[in-house]
């Protein structure tokens, strides 16, 4: 019982009213008294009372009238009617109108005892009813909130699922998201929505700007890219934020965030796809291969061209995919790349692709999953072919330069072979004439004629033919002609052997013979200025070599020597210089020395003589490639060494050392013939 409960007592009998107020005051109630129904209603309207105590019989508006009036206004407050007359009809109507109790004034005054209890009951009932109402309201509210939450979550889940689908075009995706927003809001029928991306809006059919809008920003990649707007088309009762709930605001933010992330991912994926396409296009167009292997030797990527040859690499190890042999090969490059953290460049041929030659660059790199090896494989068949053609054309060019000299070397023997043959033709005819005379002499003798005339005739013919001269000259003419024929044959054979392409596989080469051929075809270049001294080691083993390249290198050295000598001999008609070529074996090496007594190499250019395009000769006389090519051939193609020792005014000796056994593949051996090379400084170990 709340002691502070206020009771409004409507009673025209003031004495009774005082009495009851006193009685109820003892029970802890505060009682206001209104003298009639009309005043009572007015006092109640002031709104401070928890319970009404109404006398039935009052002048003017009676108790029932008051209850009727209150009932008409809404729910009846806790009301007790007190009546002196036990009129049943009145009681029934009062109860029907919802009064809490109906107390009859008995004359014994017992009702004064009853009244506080009735009041307590009525107040308790009112309190319970209030509590129940509140509980119901709370439940209803909770239920509504849960509904909202479910709708929000449904919406968010639907949006998520929608955005996971990477194949749907963006605009279609946005339409679907817009369609999901309406049903998630409190008033779906008046909800409209719009997504604006990069100033391009996409919206629900009913969208328009209204005073009731919510907005959330869409951020892609840290940049404000657009906004998500939701609005009500018509006013709705205010809740948390205008007509919108806090949850709706949150949901809107969530959807916008989600959308931003998905767009970001989509853009990244599109970019990756584009990049991949571009890269694969470039790879295809340039016949470049790309493969990526991880530390477990699993194939992470191979370009499309490889996939057409080797199939799908997914899940396969390198060995399974490319074969054991290639894998072992890769292992060594992987190890080297990991150890040095630098690209490893090698060359190879692809056995499953017609043995086409490739250059492989293995590049180590690290990503989130650890160390990987990316290998770029470039087709170099074109380069190889061009290198071979270049080497061949350089050889032919050398022959072209030698052509004048070779022509002289050939035309001179042809001249005297021709002369001698004419001479022999005449001599034969002369001798036949003498023989005819001798025949006539024999016939005359057999016939027993006088022989004087016949003898004179033979003498005359002998004299005419100059038999003594012929007897002396004919053998010489034959001998010299054969010598000439041999010379021509020798030159032609040397030319053929020198210019033979020889292929790109090393073969066993007789160095002595190769050098002799080179000296033969270049003879006209040095024979007027130099005496040739050769000292060939007859026991020199065959050397594994690329004959064509090696011939070129020797020719370049011989030509240089001849020109060095010519520089000193030509000037003052001084005697010829000496061109000396020797071969010998030194352990596992073959040594070739080309020595000249020419002008020597000035000290200040010694560092540069092996550089491509470096030349001291007049324009048109030298390309500056001679020694660069010689070095490339000896060092890069054969794993040998080349060095020189020179004294200005005294001459130069070049020493070439070639390994007698094939050496392990030199990684740089397949570099272009004309690649920049560093000069090998002569060292005491290499020089005589």
């Amino acid at each position: 019982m709340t002691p502070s409960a206020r009771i409004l007592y409507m009673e025209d009998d003031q004495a009774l009213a005082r009495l009851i107020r006193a009685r109820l005051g003892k029970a802890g109630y505060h009682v206001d008294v209104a003298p009639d129904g009309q005043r009572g209603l007015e006092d109640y309207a002031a709104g401070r009372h928890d319970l009404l105590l109404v006398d039935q019989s009052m002048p003017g508006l009676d108790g029932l009238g008051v209850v009727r009036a209150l009932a008409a206004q809404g729910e009846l407050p806790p009301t007790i009617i007190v009546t002196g007359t036990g009129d049943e009809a009145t009681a029934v109507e009062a109860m029907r109108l919802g009064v809490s109790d109906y107390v009859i004034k008995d004359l014994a005054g017992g009702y004064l005892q009853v009244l506080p209890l009735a009041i307590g009951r009525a107040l308790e009932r009112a309190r319970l009813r209030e509590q129940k109402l509140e509980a119901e309201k709370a439940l209803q509210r909770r239920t509504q909130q849960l509904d909202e939450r479910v709708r929000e979550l449904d919406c968010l889940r639907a949006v998520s699922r929608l955005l996971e689908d990477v194949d749907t075009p963006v605009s279609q995706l946005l339409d679907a998201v817009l369609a999901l927003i309406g049903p998630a809001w409190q008033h779906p029928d008046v909800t409209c929505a719009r997504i604006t991306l990069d100033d391009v809006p996409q919206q629900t059919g009913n969208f328009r700007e209204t005073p009731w809008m919510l907005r959330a920003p869409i951020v892609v990649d840290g940049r404000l890219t657009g906004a998500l707007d939701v609005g009500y088309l018509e006013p709705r009762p205010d809740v948390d934020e205008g007509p919108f709930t806090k949850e709706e605001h949150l949901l809107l933010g969530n959807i916008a965030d989600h959308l931003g992330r998905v767009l970001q991912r989509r853009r990244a994926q599109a970019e990756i796809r584009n990049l991949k396409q571009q890269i694969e296009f470039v790879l295809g167009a340039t016949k470049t291969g790309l493969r990526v292997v991880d530390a477990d030797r699993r194939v992470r990527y191979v370009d499309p061209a490889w996939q057409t040859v080797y199939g799908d690499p997914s899940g396969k190890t390198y060995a399974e995919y490319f074969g054991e042999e290639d894998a072992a090969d890769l292992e060594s490059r992987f190890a080297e790349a990991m150890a040095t953290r630098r690209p490893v460049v090698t060359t190879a041929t692809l056995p499953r692709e017609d043995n086409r030659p490739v250059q492989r660059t293995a590049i180590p790199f690290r990503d989130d999953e650890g160390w990987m090896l990316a290998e770029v494989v470039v087709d170099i068949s074109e380069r190889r072919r061009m290198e071979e053609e270049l080497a061949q054309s350089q050889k032919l060019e050398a022959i072209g330069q030698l052509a004048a000299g070779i022509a002289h070397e050939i035309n001179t023997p042809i001249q005297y072979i021709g002369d001698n043959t004419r001479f022999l033709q005449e001599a034969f005819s002369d001798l036949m004439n003498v023989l005819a005379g001798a025949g006539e002499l024999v016939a005359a003798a057999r016939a027993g004629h006088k022989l004087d005339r016949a003898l004179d005739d033979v003498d005359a013919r002998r004299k005419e033919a100059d038999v003594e001269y012929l007897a002396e000259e004919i053998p010489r003419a034959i001998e010299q002609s054969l010598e000439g024929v041999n010379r021509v044959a020798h030159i032609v054979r040397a030319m053929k052997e020198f210019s033979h392409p020889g292929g790109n596989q090393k073969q066993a080469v007789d160095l002595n013979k190769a050098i002799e051929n080179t000296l033969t075809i270049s003879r006209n270049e040095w024979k007027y200025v130099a005496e040739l001294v050769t000292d060939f080691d007859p026991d020199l083993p065959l050397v594994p070599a690329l004959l064509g390249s090696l011939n070129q290198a020797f020719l370049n050295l011989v030509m240089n020597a001849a020109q060095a000598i010519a520089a000193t001999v030509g000037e003052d008609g001084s005697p010829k210089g000496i061109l000396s070529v020797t071969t010998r074996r030194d352990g596992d090496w073959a040594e070739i020395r080309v020595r000249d007594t020419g002008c020597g190499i000035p000290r200040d250019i010694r560092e540069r003589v092996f550089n491509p395009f470096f030349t001291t000769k007049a324009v048109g006389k030298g390309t500056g490639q001679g020694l660069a090519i010689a070095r490339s051939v000896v060092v890069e193609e054969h794993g040998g060494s080349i060095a020189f020792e020179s004294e200005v005014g005294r001459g130069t000796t070049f020493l070439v050392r070639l390994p007698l056994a094939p050496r392990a593949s030199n990684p740089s051996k397949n570099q272009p013939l004309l690649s920049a090379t560093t000069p090998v400084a002569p060292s005491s170990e290499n020089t005589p």
Partner: protein
Amino acid sequence: MNPIVLLVDDDENVLHGLSRVLRNQPYHLFTARSGDEAIHVLKTHVVDVIVADDQMPGMSGSDLLAWVAEHCSEVRRIVLTGHATAATAIRAINEGAVFRFFTKPCDEVELAIAIREALEQRQAEARAT
């Protein structure tokens, strides 16, 4: 007295061959194996015609003929070269003022005729002076 024809070539076999095919011609054949040798002959004999190779060790044929044109221009000059280049020919004509220019291998009859013509021209000139 028979006229003198001087053959110059660094290759002895060429000299032998030419001597054999020209042995019955009405002139003496002298041979020299270098420019220096040829100049020695020119200084010691009255040479009428000189037939010289171009490429030789030491003094080249062009140099020799240029020397002849300068020092004994009455000697008729014929070139017989193993390899004719435009440069050789121009030099022979301009500096050597040569009578004929042959390349090896040449027909010995044509060479013989050229020598004869040179001799006739030489003799006509000698008679005129």
